[in-house]
């Protein structure tokens, strides 16, 4: 008997479901960052607003990368519905704390997909996920670095103004 399922689609239904959940997660991240950009802009933190605009754009690009992968492999990519996007934050610092938490949760969920791929010996998807692991290294570094600025510079006096200025200059260059 022919293996029609395999002929039509490279992904198992479990991996396909996990990637679709990841698509939603990336879309949610993008929406959260946009909301953070809005909050920063409204409160006068222009550099941070730009930083979050860029982050929102990147998350959207990640979403599309996953989306296209599912389609290219013969699966069914689902355009997600995004709800519950927080619009207000208590402080400038809280925005960055939540940004780091978001990145950590994204890394965890990509690890979860990779664990499933290992179990199913889906090396094709694993190879695809490697790009995201490298990306998460950068994302987590940037979010952590931004939070460190609060400790290093301090929020007293013109501290927040300085932090905002430095957020726009955070870069990450990895050796490998």
């Amino acid at each position, binding site marked *: *008997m*022919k*293996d*029609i*399922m*395999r*002929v*039509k*689609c490279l992904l198992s239904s479990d991996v396909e479901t996990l990637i679709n959940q990841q698509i939603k997660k990336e879309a949610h991240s993008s929406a959260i960052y946009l909301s953070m950009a809005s909050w920063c802009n409204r409160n006068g933190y222009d550099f941070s607003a730009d930083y979050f605009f860029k982050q929102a754009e990147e998350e959207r690009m990640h979403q599309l990368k996953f989306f296209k992968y599912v389609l290219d492999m013969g699966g*069914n990519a689902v355009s997600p519905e995004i709800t519950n996007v927080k619009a207000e934050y208590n402080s400038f610092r809280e925005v960055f704390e939540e940004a780091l938490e978001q990145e950590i949760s994204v890394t965890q969920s990509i690890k979860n997909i990779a664990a499933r791929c290992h179990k199913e010996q889906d090396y094709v998807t694993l190879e695809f996920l490697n790009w995201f692991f490298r990306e998460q290294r950068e994302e987590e570094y940037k979010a952590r670095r931004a939070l460190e600025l609060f400790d290093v510079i301090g929020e007293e006096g013109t501290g927040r103004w300085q932090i905002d200025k430095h957020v726009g200059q955070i870069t990450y260059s990895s050796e490998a």
Partner: protein
Amino acid sequence: MQNLTIQSSVDFVEVFSTSAGAIFQSDSENCWYVDFAGKLARFDYRNILKLKKAVYHIDIEAMLLDNTKSPDVEIIFICACDHCYVLSLIQIIELKELLQGMFVMLELNHIIHDRLCRLIS
């Protein structure tokens, strides 16, 4: 809804069957034939997945607990597919069992193919 008749030239392999029905695979046509509720319906790759999703999404427990006077009937209509099922609660359970068995057998077939391909290559 027209009933299909199987042509003798079509190669059929039984994938899974229960007392309520059976599912066959046709390698030459790349499709499955579902013999259930008194009719034989042809499903291609996309439609069989849609049928699976539709049946799996029916909340059988909620239907059982529902004490309103509505009839225990569910209409399973699949977009861009010629077939539609009007099923009672018992039939939904039977169809779900049939589909679950089918997908387990397909998974098993996939594992065998996977192992064989690696041995040969």
